[in-house]
């Protein structure tokens, strides 16, 4: 029995190694480097509570006397704070490690929400077609005509005003995930619908209908698996987009609170001190954010090239 | 007089799993006004052989050996700009899908005029006259009116006629037609084939007809080349190939045709599939599907042997008692 399992595992590994994707990955330096960067970010974010020298969420650990210490390399640097501190005396390295985690968390969860909503709506619209399809797609059009940022600003501002700042700080992460997730589902819905329309014309779907399968079984077993490639491509881009949206919201003061900062809130937090010479408070998280976004997007570009049947084959 | 002379042509595709030779040692000639057919299954190398003449092999493929001589010039040594003066001018192409040649957003007239003006220094009005002439030559009714039409306004058969008219615009010496009737219905196919044959006769144009359909080839061409797994395995006069095939593969193909079987009986099928280019067998290319296989077939690759009117690459060719 174990031998069989081993055999299957070896088979899967063999398949992966022989796949065009693996080949392309190994022979594409950009893809490897960006994957490594993204992986490192995720690892650091997950391990943040273990490796961060301080807990940036614990106000008792800051000392205002330590405020605005520059990163090491400067004359006034302090060996306790490798990347310096912010205006409250918070360790920048710890704040950035935790902040990266929050940013990625929001990006991933918001994208998952978009994915679930968009894929369900797209599958239904595409497979059943007709009036239902027209209705759902018009809703998507309307949704898309309001930019995510606009919707998010209005909703979050209202939310902040109604529940008060205290409660807002506690539920900010949920609210942001919900807003970004709800605002961007049409991206997925449209792509999935297009895939379904293409797959519906394929004869294997007809063959499944001739067998007599239930429409939902056909959607689930025959159509959905064939939308995976484009979904993977959009998902990478959407994670990056969600992270940026969250950063923009935070920069406008509508995102994560300073007490539990994301990379965006850190940038906003340090922005006031740029002109007073404390450049690192805003620049370091900004660079961190940019590298993450660029890496994710490059990975997405590579995925798109590899999975695009028109370029490949 | 020899118009096209191809000797030992070889085309290679470098792939990630190592390079693959798509065609090997392909040699044939086309005389002025001669119609030859290249027959074979998909992947046999028939299109690659023809596209190599115009250096139109899709990347990353390249001509890795041999020489191509057209009307005294060595095509295999031409640079791209000189090649363009020959391509579409002295050698024209007709593709399976007319929409590959026709631009959907330009009218037929504009496209035809531009094809002429690309190769000739004449006025637009003169070009238009030539276009009308050629449309009449391919028997398109009310040619003058067609100039203003767009490709999508024409039926499939009409479109292929327009493509043939475009191919004739510059009075080429050679036309390469890649499956020109595969996408068409039988009744239209019959008309187009007859038209092609008549035009080649009338204007003394050479024709290379690439197809998988032995019936089509045998009606139009004077010579047939049979390709299998990237090599020529038999060539000769159409009459010889169709009635007295010497290669077991050719005979197998002919015997497998429904018209050569009593209705209701099993077709004489050739078992197995053509080897892919990655695993070309040792010895005779056909040995693993051949009924007459002997030891030597598995070891030694037979060369094309015989006379111009009929040669075959087989250790034990089929012989016919006269």
């Amino acid at each position, binding site marked *: 029995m174990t031998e069989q399992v081993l055999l299957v595992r070896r088979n899967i590994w063999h398949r992966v190694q022989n796949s065009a994707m693996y080949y392309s990955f190994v022979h594409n330096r950009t893809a490897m480097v960006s994957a490594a960067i993204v992986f490192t970010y995720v690892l650091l974010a997950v391990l943040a509570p273990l490796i961060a020298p301080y807990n940036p969420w614990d106000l008792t650990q800051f000392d205002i006397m330590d405020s605005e210490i520059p990163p090491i390399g400067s004359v006034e640097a302090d060996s306790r704070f490798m990347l310096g501190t912010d205006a409250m005396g918070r360790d920048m390295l710890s704040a950035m490690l935790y902040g990266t985690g929050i940013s990625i968390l929001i990006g991933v969860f918001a994208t998952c929400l978009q994915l679930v909503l968009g894929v369900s709506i797209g599958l239904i619209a595409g497979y059943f077609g007709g009036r239902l399809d027209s209705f759902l797609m018009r809703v998507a059009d309307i949704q898309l005509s309001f930019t995510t940022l606009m919707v998010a600003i209005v909703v979050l501002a209202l939310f902040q005003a109604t529940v008060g700042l205290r409660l807002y700080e506690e539920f900010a992460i949920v609210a942001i995930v919900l807003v970004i997730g709800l605002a961007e589902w049409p991206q997925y819905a449209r792509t999935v619908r297009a895939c379904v329309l293409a797959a519906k014309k*394929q*004869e294997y779907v007809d063959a499944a209908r001739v*067998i007599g399968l239930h429409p939902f079984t056909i959607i689930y077993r025959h159509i959905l698996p064939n939308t995976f490639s484009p979904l993977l491509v959009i998902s990478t881009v959407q994670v990056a987009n969600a992270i940026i949206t969250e950063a923009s919201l935070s920069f406008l003061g509508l995102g994560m609170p300073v007490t539990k900062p994301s990379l965006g809130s850190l940038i906003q937090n340090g922005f006031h001190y740029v002109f007073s010479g404390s450049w690192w408070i805003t620049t370091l998280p900004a660079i961190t954010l940019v590298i993450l976004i660029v890496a994710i997007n490059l990975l997405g570009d590579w995925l798109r090239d590899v999975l695009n049947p028109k370029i490949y084959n | 007089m020899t118009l096209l002379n191809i000797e030992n042509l070889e085309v290679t595709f470098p792939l990630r799993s190592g390079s693959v030779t798509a065609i090997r040692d392909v040699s044939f000639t086309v005389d002025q006004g001669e119609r030859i057919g290249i027959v074979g299954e998909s992947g046999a190398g028939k299109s690659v052989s023809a596209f190599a003449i115009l250096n139109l092999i899709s990347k990353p493929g390249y001509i890795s050996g041999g020489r191509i001589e057209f009307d005294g010039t060595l095509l295999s040594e031409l640079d791209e700009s000189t090649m363009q003066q020959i391509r579409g001018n002295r050698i024209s192409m007709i593709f399976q899908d007319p929409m590959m040649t026709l631009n959907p957003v330009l009218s037929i007239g504009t496209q035809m005029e531009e094809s002429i003006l690309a190769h000739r220094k004449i006025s637009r009005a003169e070009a238009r006259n030539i276009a009308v002439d050629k449309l009449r030559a391919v028997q398109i009714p009310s040619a003058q009116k067609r100039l203003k039409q767009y490709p999508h306004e024409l039926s499939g058969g009409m479109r292929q006629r327009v493509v043939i008219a475009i191919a004739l615009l510059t009075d080429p010496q050679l036309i390469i037609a890649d499956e020109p009737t595969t996408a068409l219905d*039988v009744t239209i196919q019959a008309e187009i084939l007859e038209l092609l044959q008549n035009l080649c006769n009338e204007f003394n144009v050479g024709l290379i007809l690439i197809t998988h359909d032995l019936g089509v080839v045998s009606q139009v061409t004077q010579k047939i080349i049979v390709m299998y797994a990237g090599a020529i395995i038999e060539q000769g006069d*159409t009459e010889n190939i*169709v009635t007295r095939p010497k290669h077991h593969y050719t005979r197998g193909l002919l015997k497998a045709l*429904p018209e050569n079987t009593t209705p209701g009986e099993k*077709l004489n*099928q050739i078992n197995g599939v053509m080897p892919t280019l990655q695993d070309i067998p040792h010895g005779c290319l056909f040995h693993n599907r051949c009924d007459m296989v002997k030891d030597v077939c598995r070891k030694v690759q037979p060369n094309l042997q015989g006379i111009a009117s009929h040669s075959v690459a087989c250790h034990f060719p089929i012989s016919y008692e006269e």
Partner: protein
Amino acid sequence: MRNEMTLVRTQKLFKYFNVSGGLLDQLSVQNGRLKRQVDLVKALNGIDLSVHSGEVLCLVGESGCGKTTVGRTIMGLLPPSSGEISYRGERIDHLSRSRLLPYRQKMQMIFQNSYASLNPRKTVSATLLEPVRFHNPRHSTAELKEKVKEVMESVGIDPKWGARYSHEISGGQRQRISIARALMVDPEFIVADEPISALDVSIQAQILNLLGDAREQRGLTYLFITHDLSVVEHFGTRVAVMYLGRICEVGKTSEIFGAPRHPYTQALLSAIPKLGKQKSPHIRMRGEVPTAIDLPSGCVFHNRCAHAKEICKTDVPELKNESSEAQVACHGIEHSWF
């Protein structure tokens, strides 16, 4: 012993496709008035067809004549606009999906494009298991797998290939798997829609022989849809010739190929490229094929027919019995002009 029972029958089958797009595309302003115009492709215009048990009925015609639509409508992939389809005398065209299930095991379909007819994300054995498992949910996996193995062997596929994906297999083998999928539920009737036209010449014979063997061993009935007339002559027991959504001639293969009656059938048969016969004297038809949107009045063939008279432009010819086996829809033959 031939059982001449009618297995599948269509009566006055019509199928129109709306190609005018959404409501906004249909509206246009003509002479200062808003008009709504609906463009219909009249794919089938009253198809009466009977498939007898045990036969191979070949449905031939040129592209766009509606032959594929007939097959897909019979299989329930397209709802007919009007008309009836019956299977062993039971009407099936208006049944719901669940009430159609028993017929799904008896009627199967083989598709033209073997690339598109196999799901690229499924292995061969998953593709073959799906239909039997669905129709026999109580059978054990071992039993079902045994069945898959048996059918794979019967279509000439090594059962070891079960773990492969469709893109790892050649075209001929893929078509064998498509055939295997149809055979998995032990059907009686198979619609084969151009099953060999996408294949290479040397493979076509293999697949055709396989279909013939399956018919002999399992007593199958085929509706064989094709444009390749030389295949028809070999494989079909009866032929139905279609033109622009109507049937113009039905009869025994040998009779139709020996002495075609309908002018269109005559033109069609004369166009078959035959080996070695340079310049076959094919009958040239006048004019162009009309589109199925603007269907000609009367006989759909009248504008291309050399024998057409006034009546052909106004009256639709009915399929009339010429003999017990053959039926022709032509005024000229009915009134013996030619």
